[in-house]
């Protein structure tokens, strides 16, 4: 409905004349995607390359890179390139054989198996080199686990922005004052009581609590509003019949980079197909490149 003015201007008043314009040139950069969570037995990195916006090229994967992981500036290990074929894409038709030409869809995976878990409060760095690209790197400190003081489940107790009744989880947290801390919240449900982690089903979350932001996965929080190192947040989920469902509340300490990345990615998704939306620049912490290297530490709380 609010598009009416725009439509009106374009179709009624405007004498539209369209001309091509040239955009600035772009030098291809390495794009790193790596998300580590405590408990992971390996560190995974995906490597692609950026292309000029008007490029016809489809191939984004970078398969010949050298990626290394450093702990407090000491080399820990080199990643191994293990491209993963996840499917096939139609690439044309072979008339002589009268059959489609299929190209494998490859994900540019680099893996590093851990012999020992990565340690909280240490700084890690990934460096990436590949022929034809400027070397890229990203730093992260593995945060300390968050301290959950209390979780209260309040079924059908809050109204969402859209006017729906929601279940609320009141989560009380503590953290170190005089230090910037960032959190991400996940709520999982389980339909049986087996306790098998694979049975946990992640739920969509949102929050009306002050200081919260919506990320691409769910609710984010920065500790600006913590008083004396503690804060209480309400995370809302769609209502469930609690007779059959258990809940797991997962609170993750995340870095500022992950916080900004997740928030900007969510804004980017929301802005797509909205001609009035302000442009979004997705946050990156990769020097001389793009993408994200993130490390997070979590604590959980089960409600049965």
């Amino acid at each position, binding site marked *: 409905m609010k598009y009416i003015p725009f439509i009106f201007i374009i179709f009624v008043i405007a004498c539209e004349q369209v001309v091509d314009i040239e955009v*600035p040139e772009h030098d291809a950069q390495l794009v790193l995607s790596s998300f580590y969570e405590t408990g992971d037995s390996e560190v995974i990195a*995906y490597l692609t390359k950026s292309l000029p916006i008007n490029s016809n090229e489809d191939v984004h994967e970078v398969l010949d890179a050298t990626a290394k992981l450093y702990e407090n500036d000491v080399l820990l290990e080199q990643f191994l390139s293990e491209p993963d074929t996840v499917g096939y894409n139609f690439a044309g038709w072979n008339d002589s054989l009268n059959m489609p030409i299929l190209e494998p869809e490859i994900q540019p995976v680099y893996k590093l198996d851990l012999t020992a878990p990565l340690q909280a409060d240490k700084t890690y760095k990934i460096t990436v080199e590949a022929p034809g690209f400027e070397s890229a790197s990203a730093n992260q400190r593995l945060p300390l686990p968050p301290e959950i003081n209390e979780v209260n489940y309040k079924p059908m107790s809050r109204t969402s*922005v859209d006017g729906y009744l929601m279940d609320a989880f009141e989560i009380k947290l503590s953290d170190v004052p005089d230090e910037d801390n960032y959190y991400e919240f996940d709520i999982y449900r389980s339909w049986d009581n087996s306790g098998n982690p694979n049975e946990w089903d992640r739920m969509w979350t949102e929050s009306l609590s002050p200081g919260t932001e919506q990320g691409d996965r769910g609710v984010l929080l920065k500790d600006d509003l913590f008083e004396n190192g503690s804060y209480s947040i309400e995370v809302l989920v769609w209502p469930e019949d609690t007779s059959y469902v258990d809940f797991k509340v997962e609170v993750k300490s995340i870095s500022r980079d992950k916080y900004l990345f997740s928030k900007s990615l969510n804004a*980017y998704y929301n802005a797509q197909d909205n*001609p009035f939306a302000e442009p979004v*620049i997705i946050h990156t912490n990769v020097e001389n490149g793009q993408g994200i290297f993130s490390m997070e530490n979590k604590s959980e709380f089960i409600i049965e």
Partner: protein
Amino acid sequence: MKQLSYVLFAFACLWCTSAEAQQQERYTISGYIEDADTGEKLIAANVFEPEKAKGTTTNVYGFFSLTLPKDSVYLAISYVGYETQYFRMYLDKDVTMNFSLGVGTDLKEVVVTAEKYERVEQKTQMSQVSVPVQQIKKLPALLGEVDVLKSLQLLPGVQSGGEGTSGLYVRGGSPDQNLILLDGVPVYNVSHLFGFFSVFNADAIKNVTLTKGGYPARFGGRLSSVLEINMKEGNMKEFKGTGSIGLISSRLTLEGPIWKERTSFIVSARRTYLDLLARPVIAIASAQAEENEGVSFNGGYYFYDVNAKINHKFSEKDRLYASVYAGDDRFNIKVSEDYNYSSGGQNYDSEFSLKSGLDWGNITSALRYNHLFSNKLFSNITATYSRYNLSTGIESTNRETVNGELFFDGAYAAKYISGIEDLAAKIDFDYLPNPSNHIRFGASATHHTFKPGALNFRIEEGDEFSLDTLIGSTNTTSMDYTAYVEDEITIGQSFKANIGVHASAFVVDGEAYTSVQPRVGLRYLLPGDVALKASYATMTQYLHLLTNEGIGLPTDLWLPSTARVAPEQSWQAAFGVAKTFRDKFEFSVEGYYKKMTNLISYKEGASFIDFGDWQDKIEQGEGESYGAEFFLQKKKGKTTGWLGYTLSWTNRQFENINGGRVYPFKYDRRHDLSAVVIHEFSDRISASATWVYGTGNSITLPVSKSTIYIPSGYGIGYYPTEIERPSEKNAFRMKPYHRLDVGVDFIKQKKRYKRRFTIGAYNMYNRKNPFFIYSVDEGTFNPATGEFEQEQKFKQVSIFTIIPSFSWGFEF
């Protein structure tokens, strides 16, 4: 507070110095200066005693007061475009004298000492321009619609937002930072037709003054400019009328005395007829669509505005003014479709209708009472009411029958409403104890009601389902209090100062914000009548406009400062030089620096389409603007006009936008040049031309694309997502904007009326100026590979290529 104490100290020192020379017997001449033909009071007319080099100017009500030593005095009363009057008398008591000035017959000859008093180098105020309405009316205009705001865009330091739009971007500020006062009442939405025309009807306007910096203490509430627009008062002597018929609208203004020399009125109305012109075209298209597809439609758009004012002179000491402005824009569309078919022996009938509309408009009204307490103390009490409302809605009905029996009956409606409403009272005093001091002081209180956007949904589906719900923010009220005092001080022949302080308080939701804003303006006259000027002003703005940068949509929201959203603040320092050459050319150059804090902007990815709490959609950050403005103006002779050039930089910085890095404001314009020429060939023919050039607007465009892999969170690994990425916010520049407009007026005095025929052309050399840029994926067939290749291209849309215009007008 430290700044305030400096101001008060300076104020006290200057007061003592200026008062030192006032110790002899003195008397006061006071009164009003008016137009001899119409009785309209003249604003900023000069009363000058050349032998004593003392003078003053009239205030916005035409009142002056000049206190001189007991002696023979020789007064020159002058005003641009009017014949100067001279008057000699022996001043041995306080006297009240009113003067009527007639329009000058030969302006070239009127070069008298008195006129020096009104020259740019004589004024303390810097960064201020008054454009005579008669000059505005002679400028070429888009579609022949004379537009006050667009004429101001031709001044240095003032930019337009986009092609054809009437928004003002003053010294790096945004349009919401302009305090636009119509007879002293703030006007919140100044656009008709989505920003292409302003709401001000030039036929009803007497005076337009724009202040870009060095704000006197009597103004406050906005960061970047003050635009004072005064409506005419109505002819006190005889009944007069003017009107015109143009391409898209017609205007009619009537004015005259109700009680001669006592009470007068003016009524001015304007209406567009786009809807009427389009009606036959729409009817034909609808008939064809109904015949072919069973769809009929109708719709239209128009705007109107009405200005009315009445004023009554109770006595020489008491006058009453009542004025009102009302204007609305209305857009509607209606579509209906009947559909029937048979299948399986069943007859299905479907009736569907859809109505949609968008209405917005302002009402401003003011009741003002002037009272002269003495010949040195003038007062004005004002009560005002204003409101801005936006309403947009959509309604649809759907009725289906099977074999004549009702199968489905549904009705859906959604309505979005927003607005702001003000009730205000204020009192202002002008106190002129001697020629060296002009003190102004006053106070005001304003009650705001904000309606920051609510959406009402209604759904009726037979007896089965019914919903009526309201989503969105609730109304908020606030109180805004101000008080000010300022003194225009003259010390000797060379030094003048305007020193004052503006204090304000804003109370909303239990939160109270206060602000004390010092203001200083200085002028020092060097030998050779070269004036050095400097000013410093701080401003606080409690109201925010939540707007998308770009076209002036009526969906923009005015919102208050709250506990979460702090008031916007700025300080601006300016330094300049001004000089008049050969009694014809005024030249000034000014440099300025403006710092703004707590500016608001939509978050990345947010837009006005999202519902929910507006406070969650915005960021607060900083901005700065600095630059230099050059202005050469010729006010007299057969050829008049000006040349303006601005070199400027404007940046913004928000913690969560562009990664917290500084980026150029969308309307950061490095070079902005405007040339305006008006030439009177004879009493019957005049021609005008304007040429503008501006650096292209900055814009954010993606320069690269890539794939990133995101953890799914559901235990099934990562998924690829393609993203586009700009290098930086607003890092790309649109092409420069330039345009030539021309117009010719043919005037003929008929037996009973004067006829004016105007022809003109907008964008004379058909420049394709950028309006906006969008991206599109284009596929081209490559014969070498036998494949279609997709390529993302950017397209620039230009509107308003060469547009001729004409209008026919009359005066009687």
